């Protein structure tokens, strides 16, 4: 033996083959099915987004580590995992430059500024998602499927519509690139469990507690029968980012508790929070915020669930209390876990109650403001009237059925208001919503006089692209085109209008222009129908 060549070190002398790189590699493999389904579903742009995010994150990490003078650790693949997760959390048509801003935020601000791998207090991919959501809400909430802008199944569910469970399971639905196919995500999740990369506790307790909450909610507040509640629950489980979140993001090592009991508490907390956010929140989705909020509680959960060392405290007990299962069955010490679970649930409940209180306290003023705004817009679209009375004699269900009979689609009549002048009805105000906007619904108020001529048009709620679709609200000359023209319906043209019934489209926002025009036409159709076609006499 060449004694100068032999290695000497303290025991143990062997190491498991698994390394940080192999773990991250396993996560990438597990995400592959979801990524492939996403690319297959949403096309080439989805592929570009995935590649851009993965490469972008790795480049940003190398760059920032270079600048900070730290060891470059891109080879551990953790940046690639973050990149892939960011991409899978983006809508398929999301602009690449925005995605790269998200990647930079995730890697530089959330991960490296706090000390790099294992030190980040928040899941970088989810932080990026929320960052992008706040910065580019339009692009982040525009979901297309087969080239058509559609609502995600979860949004449909929230609006009270019905969904197709099978296509949700397989992934033939609108959504972010990676979240649509529950089947692909579950395959990846099972791979991670089998490879022992993740522990079952977090996803299990997350999904179970969420299911219990949803099921009870559906049975009680939702007034559903058991079968319907089951369908509702299945739709919630399959829809949105729940599976992606439960298996791939809630289990992120750095931002989830390492203690066994902590994992249970964390899972339950996630389930309850997701339930609250999805059902009572403003948006249909709640997974990312639930995980991010829970991330912040992880240090607390870990502190409270530190395991008891093997045999701790037995040195001061008499032998009779350390009889093990020779004399009696071992009593499991579950007390501390219970305490923490109860504490966390109480925190959750208090937070929920606080949210509810804020909601009720602000409900009145908000409604008052809304009412005031409504009155203001009524005056704007029907300047000649002094008084506005809601038409309680007209059932909106019948009205909507009638316009459907007349061949209208994509539009819902929300409210009809009598515009009165000197006590006499001088015309109508129609509140109408089109579902064909570029970024979702557009609600508008329309004044029509007894001759069926539009007296004014204003947008009530609109979330279209700034400088394009938003011009429908921001440029008064667009709405002015509809006013004072005794026509039955309008058509959109891209050139200067030659006839009275022609509306010049907003440049670059044909979809918005068409949607608004269609809504106006439907409202006119209904009013003309109501007036018995006497409008133009």
């Amino acid at each position, binding site marked *: 033996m060449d004694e100068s060549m032999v290695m000497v070190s303290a025991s143990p*002398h*062997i190491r498991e083959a698994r390394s940080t790189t192999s773990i991250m590699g396993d996560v990438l493999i597990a995400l592959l099915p979801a990524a492939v389904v996403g690319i297959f579903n949403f096309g080439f742009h989805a592929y570009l987004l995935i590649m851009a995010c993965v490469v972008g994150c790795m480049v940003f990490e190398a760059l920032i580590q270079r600048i900070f003078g730290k060891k470059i650790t891109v080879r551990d693949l953790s940046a690639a995992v973050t990149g892939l997760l960011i991409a899978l959390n983006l809508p398929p048509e999301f602009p690449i430059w925005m995605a790269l801003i998200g990647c930079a935020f995730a890697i530089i601000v959330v991960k490296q500024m706090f000390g790099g791998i294992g030190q980040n207090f928040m899941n970088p991919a989810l932080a990026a998602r929320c960052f992008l959501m706040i910065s580019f809400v339009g692009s982040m909430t525009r979901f297309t499927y087969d080239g058509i802008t559609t609502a995600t199944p979860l949004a449909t569910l929230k609006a009270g519509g019905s969904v197709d469970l099978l296509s949700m399971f397989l992934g033939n639905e609108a959504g972010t690139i990676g979240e649509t196919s529950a089947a692909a995500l579950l395959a990846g999740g099972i791979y991670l469990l089998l490879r022992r990369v993740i522990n079952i506790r977090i996803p299990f307790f997350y999904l179970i507690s969420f299911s219990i909450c949803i099921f009870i909610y559906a049975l009680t507040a939702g007034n559903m029968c058991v079968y319907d509640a089951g369908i509702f629950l299945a739709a919630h489980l399959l829809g949105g980012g729940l599976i992606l979140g439960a298996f791939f993001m809630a289990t992120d090592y750095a931002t989830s508790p390492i203690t066994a009991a902590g994992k249970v508490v964390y899972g339950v907390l996630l389930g309850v929070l997701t339930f609250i956010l999805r059902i009572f929140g403003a948006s249909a989705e709640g997974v990312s915020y639930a995980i991010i909020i829970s991330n912040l509680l992880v240090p607390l959960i870990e502190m409270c669930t530190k395991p008891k060392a093997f045999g701790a405290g037995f040195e001061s007990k008499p032998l009779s209390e350390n009889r093990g299962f020779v004399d009696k069955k071992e009593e499991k010490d579950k007390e501390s876990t219970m305490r923490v679970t109860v504490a966390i649930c109480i925190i959750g409940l208090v937070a929920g109650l606080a949210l509810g209180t804020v909601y009720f306290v602000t409900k009145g003023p908000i409604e008052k403001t809304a009412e005031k705004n409504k009155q203001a817009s009524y005056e704007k679209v029907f300047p000649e009237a002094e008084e506005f009375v809601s038409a309680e004699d007209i059932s909106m269900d019948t009205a909507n059925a009638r316009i459907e009979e007349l061949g209208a689609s994509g539009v819902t009549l929300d409210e009809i208001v009598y515009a009165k002048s000197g006590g006499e009805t001088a015309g109508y105000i129609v509140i109408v919503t089109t579902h064909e906007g570029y970024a979702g619904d557009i609600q508008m108020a329309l004044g029509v006089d007894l001759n069926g001529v539009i007296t004014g048009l204003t947008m009530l709620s609109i979330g279209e692209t700034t400088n394009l679709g938003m011009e429908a609200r921001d440029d008064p000359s667009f709405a002015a085109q509809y006013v004072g023209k005794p026509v039955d319906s309008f058509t959109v043209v891209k050139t200067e209008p030659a006839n009275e019934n022609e509306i010049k489209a907003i440049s670059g926002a044909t979809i918005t222009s068409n949607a608004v025009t269609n809504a106006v036409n439907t409202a006119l159709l209904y009013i003309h129908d109501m007036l018995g076609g006497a409008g133009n006499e």
Partner: protein
Amino acid sequence: MALFTFKGGVHPDDGKKLTMDKEVIEYVPKGDLVFPLSQHIGAPAKPLVKKGDRVVVGQKIAEAGGFVSANIHSSVSGTVKAIEKRLVPGGGKVESIVVENDNLYEEIDFSKNIRPLEELYREDVIDIIREAGIVGMGGAGFPTHVKLSPKNESEIDTIIVNGAECEPYLTSDYRRMLEEPEKVVVGLKIVINLFEHARGIIAIEDNKKEAIRLLKEMTKDEEKIQVNVLKTKYPQGAERQLIYANTGRYINSKMLPADAGCIVHNVDTIISIYEAVIEGRPLISRVVTVTGDCIEDPRNFIVRLGTDYQELIDAAGGFKTEPAKVISGGPMMGKALFSLNVPVTKGSSAILALSRDAVAESEPSDCIKCGRCLEICPGRVMPSLLCDYAEAGDLEQFVKNHGMECCECGCCSYVCPAKRHLTQIISGTRKVVLAQKKG
């Protein structure tokens, strides 16, 4: 039947197939033999011979230096060449008696030591065991007569023979159970009879099917002895985990097995007790597994204590390839050697020569907080957290978070995907804390 086990632990590649089926063969040393005066826990032994004296096999050459100490006997006949500091497997230099081998192997008459069993009282048996210089042969080297004299003698109800042999590569205990099962059973019966309420358990991991079958067969009529089959995993043979697995009782770092009514003996120790009481032979030999992927012909040897490691490796055909690391003991808790000229001591269970050193091949990186170390820790402490405190020098938090409960089994370093040296840092910090307590 459900297997006896504990929570945590790891499953390293056990490497036992190299020597599992190799019969124990005797190796007779040619060169000088070295007897370190401290190869047990406690005070070093005091030499009874001086340079130039002639000694024979079985002669007591050093006597216990206190109650917690052990006698040392010569395993060879020859002349005392020197009493000087010599390197031992643990890495330090220890005062040792060096005997020049005359290759005659002249023995004292062991039969003179034998007394009929029925005439022996409890004290006599413990006396014989003390006289024979028997210590725990699993590695720690705690003097056996001390273990057998607990304060709460009447509370001892379980004697466990540790046949788990959970360290990878080691097969010496397995071979002994296979080849000398009657010595294990009788040795255990001797110990059981020292305690009024005791029963015996022979605990064997379920990867040693043949030994389980054999010992079950031999103990089927023994009312007080049962064979427990343990789940195969490391560190199933660690004292605290072994006691828990077999009885459900806990002991921590501040307690002795006797505090839980248990006494645990290694297989080699039990056989030594048998040989001392029945055959009158002191502890002068043990079984050593010489193995690893660098050894030409891996084997189990019965070796005279004091034999040079180099001689044993040569007896196993020498190195097939140049080793990257040579370890005294198993890969999880053994000591890396920087010289092969060290003697076999009472605690030497194996010599392991590996062609690859996993420690040198992997560089530690940042903790990714995966929690694997916590998941597998048999001591149920939080290795990654302890390591953070240790690195920050926060000894108070280290102790508060049960740092002293670590048994240094090595599982955390083994599983860590970031390849942090968790066990090494924690064990180093424990030594600092202990030193501060003493100081």
